[in-house]
């Protein structure tokens, strides 16, 4: 057991070490300061600007930034949808796959466009290489970059700067952050045994003399951005549990760190923008503490195993159902929390097979959305929670609440509330509809409490733009494809609009100078209060679901039923 926890500790120490370096690098990129990559990238970027005709790089207002995101995403979405529907007649279709159904293609397009990568299909048997690389690979970069741009624009507004130009931020995110890191990462994965080829599936004769067809493809290049960009859509149906996506513990370590690095670093980036790295570290440790708690809960749950199985075995054994033995209970538990926390959504084991504590923790992550959180947006949500904490508790110091010197008034609360409200709406309402007609709609493989977790997980994953599945659902149906699409779109773009308008609003406020009468937000006290507010608001909203899902299931299992 202790060896398992040592593995977790080691992984997280690396993350902690990377955070300030990556964080300040991201800050330098978006503050327009010199970085060591400038000599190569600046001319390349200039070429892209010339090519794409982006001549005006003026700062945008909140609405302009929002419109730029919405239009560009719509354009990319239509482009990808058309290619998916036409993949049968387009090149690089070595296995002669036909077009997917219209609703699956729609769901897939929206899912990758929103940085979610929820998959109601198995990549290797559904999509051609062209669809995988040109469509989905392309969206993996742009959707991650969109999220990053939103996060940076939000931080800019919060710290009193103009929001910046979306197209410049989008290109910079790709050329200076996602692409260089992915190149290095993909090479590492390649060296460690992940294939990358445009050749068709390999055919071999097995020892028994059977013919086996082994799917392969341009995996390594696809794999790393899938992790780094919090995309999570696997090349293969079983995602990072597949030996070609994630062959050994070392690739597993790299892929775990790739997921967590940017969301963690962005908190530090905020610290540099706000010129307050003390607060950044406090927030980092706050998130870290909740994260560790959830990792601990799920790891112990997996370690203790299933009581029913243990009775049969006559002793306590870790739960290895739905896990790859090359990773074991500990790396799967850690991965599960990281992937749901960061909204990556890649899996290296089946979440459906997690013990109730694991199910609880992964759902909890999807509900809160800030235990690191999605690319860019997660960091922004963290500050929305901070603003709400300031508003509720800040009154108790006898002043109109202010954050970074800017007063929190009606408009800010309305915009922050959108984010607070949209999540329960898009998760609970479709879940309730689905559960109201279990036979017609749900396709649930497990009845009872676990079935509730399966359904709620699907919508929570869609709304939070996570993309992982609890699985066990027959989810490639018209109902699931369309209802999940609504959650995907609503969970992505409504908060983005609110965040950008909120940032714009904060930027336009006259800052109030800080005095001893001002509530300081960079103290241990206030950070603890924020943690309390986050937990209370998160828990209060989803407590009944958690109670009837994983908690009830846990009690049931404990009773040995």
């Amino acid at each position, binding site marked *: 057991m202790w060896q398992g926890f040592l593995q977790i500790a080691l992984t997280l120490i690396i993350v902690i070490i990377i955070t300030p370096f990556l964080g300040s690098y991201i800050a330098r990129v978006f503050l327009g300061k010199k970085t060591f990559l400038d000599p190569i990238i600046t001319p390349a970027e200039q070429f892209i600007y010339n090519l794409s005709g982006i001549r005006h790089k003026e700062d945008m207002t909140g609405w302009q930034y929002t419109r730029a995101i919405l239009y560009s995403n719509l354009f990319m979405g239509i482009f990808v949808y058309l290619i998916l529907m036409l993949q049968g007649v387009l090149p690089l279709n070595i296995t002669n796959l036909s077009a997917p159904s219209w609703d699956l293609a729609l769901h897939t397009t929206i899912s990758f466009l929103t940085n979610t990568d929820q998959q109601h299909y198995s990549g290797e048997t559904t999509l051609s290489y062209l669809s995988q690389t040109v469509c989905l690979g392309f969206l993996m970069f742009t959707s991650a970059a969109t999220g990053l741009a939103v996060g940076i624009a939000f931080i800019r507004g919060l710290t009193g700067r103009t929001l910046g130009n979306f197209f410049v931020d989008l290109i910079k995110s790709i050329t200076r952050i996602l692409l260089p890191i992915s190149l290095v990462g993909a090479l590492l994965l390649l060296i460690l045994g992940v294939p990358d080829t445009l050749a068709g599936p390999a055919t071999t004769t097995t020892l028994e003399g059977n013919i086996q067809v082994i799917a392969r493809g341009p995996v390594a290049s696809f794999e790393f951005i899938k992790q780094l960009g919090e995309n999570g859509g696997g090349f293969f149906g079983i995602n990072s549990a597949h030996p070609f996506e994630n062959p050994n513990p070392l690739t597993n370590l790299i892929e775990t760190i790739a997921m967590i690095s940017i969301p963690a670093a962005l908190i530090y980036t905020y610290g540099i923008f706000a010129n307050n790295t003390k607060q950044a570290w406090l927030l980092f440790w706050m998130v870290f503490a909740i994260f560790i708690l959830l990792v601990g809960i799920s790891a112990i749950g997996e370690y203790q195993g299933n009581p029913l199985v243990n009775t049969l075995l006559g002793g306590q054994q870790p739960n290895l159902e739905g896990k790859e033995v090359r990773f074991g209970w500990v790396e799967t538990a850690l991965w599960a929390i990281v992937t749901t926390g960061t909204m990556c959504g890649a899996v290296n084991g089946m979440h459906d097979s997690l013990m109730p504590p694991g199910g609880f923790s992964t759902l909890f992550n999807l509900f809160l959305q800030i235990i690191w959180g999605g690319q860019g947006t997660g960091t922004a949500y963290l500050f929305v929670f901070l603003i*709400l904490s300031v*508003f*509720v*508790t800040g*009154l*108790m*110091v*006898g*002043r*109109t609440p202010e954050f970074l*010197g800017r007063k929190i*008034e*009606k408009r*800010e*609360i*309305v915009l922050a*509330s959108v984010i*607070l*409200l949209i999540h*329960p*709406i898009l998760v*609970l*309402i479709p*879940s*309730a*509809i689905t*559960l*109201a007609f*279990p036979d017609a709609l749900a396709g649930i493989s497990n009845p*009872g*409490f676990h*079935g*509730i977790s399966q359904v709620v997980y699907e919508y929570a994953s869609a709304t939070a733009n996570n993309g992982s599945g609890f699985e066990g659902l027959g989810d490639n149906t018209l109902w699931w494809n369309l209802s999940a699409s609504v959650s995907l779109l609503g969970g992505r773009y409504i908060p983005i609009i609110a965040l950008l308008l909120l940032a714009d609003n904060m930027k336009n406020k*006259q800052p*109030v*100078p800080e*005095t*001893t*009468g*001002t*509530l*300081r937000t960079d*103290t241990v*006290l*206030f950070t603890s*209060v924020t943690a309390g507010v986050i937990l*209370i608001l998160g*828990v*209060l*909203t989803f*407590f*009944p*679901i958690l*109670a*009837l899902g994983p*908690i*009830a299931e846990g*009690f*049931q299992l404990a*009773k040995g039923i």
Partner: protein
Amino acid sequence: MSNSTSKPRRTPQGRRDSRRHTPKVDTKGIYQRAIRDSFVKLDPRVQVRNPVMFVVWIGTIITALLTINPYLFGNVPGENLRFFNGLITVILFFTLVFANFAEAVAEGRGKAQADALRSTKSDTIAKKLSPDGKIQEVSSTTLRRGDIVKVIAGDIIPADGEVISGVASVDESAITGESAPVLKEPGSDIASSVTGGTKIISDELTIRVTADPGKGFIDRMIALVEGAERSKTPNEIALTVLLAVLTQVFLIVVATLPPVANYVKNPVSVAILIALLVALIPTTIGGLLSAIGIAGMDRVAQFNVVATSGRAVEACGDVNTLVLDKTGTITLGNRLAEEFIPVNGHSLEDVAGVALAASVFDETPEGKSIVRLAERLGAEVDFDRTQAEGIEFSAKTRMSGTDLPDGREIRKGAVDAIKGFVRSRGGKLAADLDQAYERVSRLGGTPLAVCQNGDIYGVIYLKDIIKPGIRERFEQLRRMGVRTVMLTGDNRITASVIAQEAGVDDFIAEATPEDKIAVIQREQAEGKLVAMTGDGTNDAPALAQANVGLAMNSGTQAAKEAANMVDLDSDPTKLIDLVTIGKQLLITRGALTTFSVANDIAKYFAILPVIFAAAGLQTLNVMGLVSTQSAVLSALIYNALIIPALIPLALRGVKFRPLTANQLLQRNILLYGLGGVVAPFIAIKVIDVLISAVGLV
């Protein structure tokens, strides 16, 4: 200006009997009226304004229907449903009534005050002066701005106005509660304004009416204290939005629960779902929110200050900078002549004589004290007063004096003003003048030079006395993060001595009225909120510019109109107390919000495990509540009773301590945050034991 040293110091926490009410309010009927009002307010048109309570209102209707027919929404298991639903209906009904009661009590005092004020405003007969000089008796309601009226001893002054002739004493107790009569005379900035509804008790006055009927000071006061014009303050609006959002969140949570519960074959009845919803939505703060705001306004009113809006009271808590006049606020109003310092080779007697001659027409306390000191030193008036002409002080010349019948011009005033005068009369400046000037300044006194034509005789040392206790008040303000800036007409050295002694953060010496507005604008440009006091007409622009402008009731009509608060006691020190009241208002709101939200944890733990007992959640019933019905009722009874339990706190306000923001947060989060988590666990358990013991369920 009133002298606050002899009275017990007034702070919001001061002894109740040390606070005067404006005017004497009959508080006997308040509770009866409040009880009546709390039922009247059940009108849905009133309830719909408060989204949280409106949800409770609808819930009450539905549970009432379910009491009549428990199977309205389909078959529900269980026995005694009608009785149980009836109990829920009754508790929800009382939750509404309690919330209404809180608001009604808060409004009650204001209404009683308004009634008292209205009684002074009865229609009076006014003696209107026609342009041809004839007196015409008309009803006071027909008076218009610009009309001239005459009032004689015993009359009620018919409208707000400006004295244009006559000298009389006026009883203003109807509005200020102060029984000592006030002298009114024309010309002077301060004493020339009169308020409609007050009573003239000696002599007679001619008054030019300055307010149309219904727009006078008392009318405005009635509207304010009655809350007729009460609009929600910015912070209150933002909080209402958040509470509405939380209500919607819980509405979604509860509304989506039935399919989920049915799926695991653990159906929940509609009545219980409504009970769960009401327990979760923030009814505690939702029910008390408006009472807190009204009570905050009322605390200001009890403090003898009339605020034109709740916004102004709230702004007090946010004030970053106080701009204070030295005289009357930091120092006792009247400076007294302490010493004459001869210069230029003149004798003490000469100086005393000239100083006396310069001050014979000076009616200010300073002038009178100079006369007294001079007479004590044996000086006498050696000219015919009736032939001499008094030169009035003006802010521009900064000197006053007397022109004697024989052509001598005697002046006293600020040293550099006198220097200028002497130069203009071809005189020379004495070398020892500056020494005397500095000596007085270093003592924190005000040096006044006296001269006769071009010859400077000496310096008068006017002694300033800093108000006792003011230093500690500034200390507290500094801890709360409020900066103080002292404005004074004194020279730089005097100002710095006083500033240091009083402990203000900054000062502006030799300040003109224009400096006042400049300093406010400068601070506001840095994003700060500024509060100031003022009484003169030339203060009006600065009062309007400041975020919180407190005008003295003794001040001019212009100043009172420009300010957003009027102090009926005319005590500028009150500005400091107003900051405290504003902060207290915000803290109370925040504390009860935090408490209300933190309560939800216990309510969840009370209700969810028992209603999902079939799903095996009984383990979470950490309070060991007896049954489903007792648990649901206990949580609801707690939810209802906590509102009246917190009414005193909402009305009185959370105790305020002058601490830094972080100390305050720490204290209040422990008390109301942690307390809000723990208290309901205990209370719900106790209620559960009690109602089970009496066999209610």
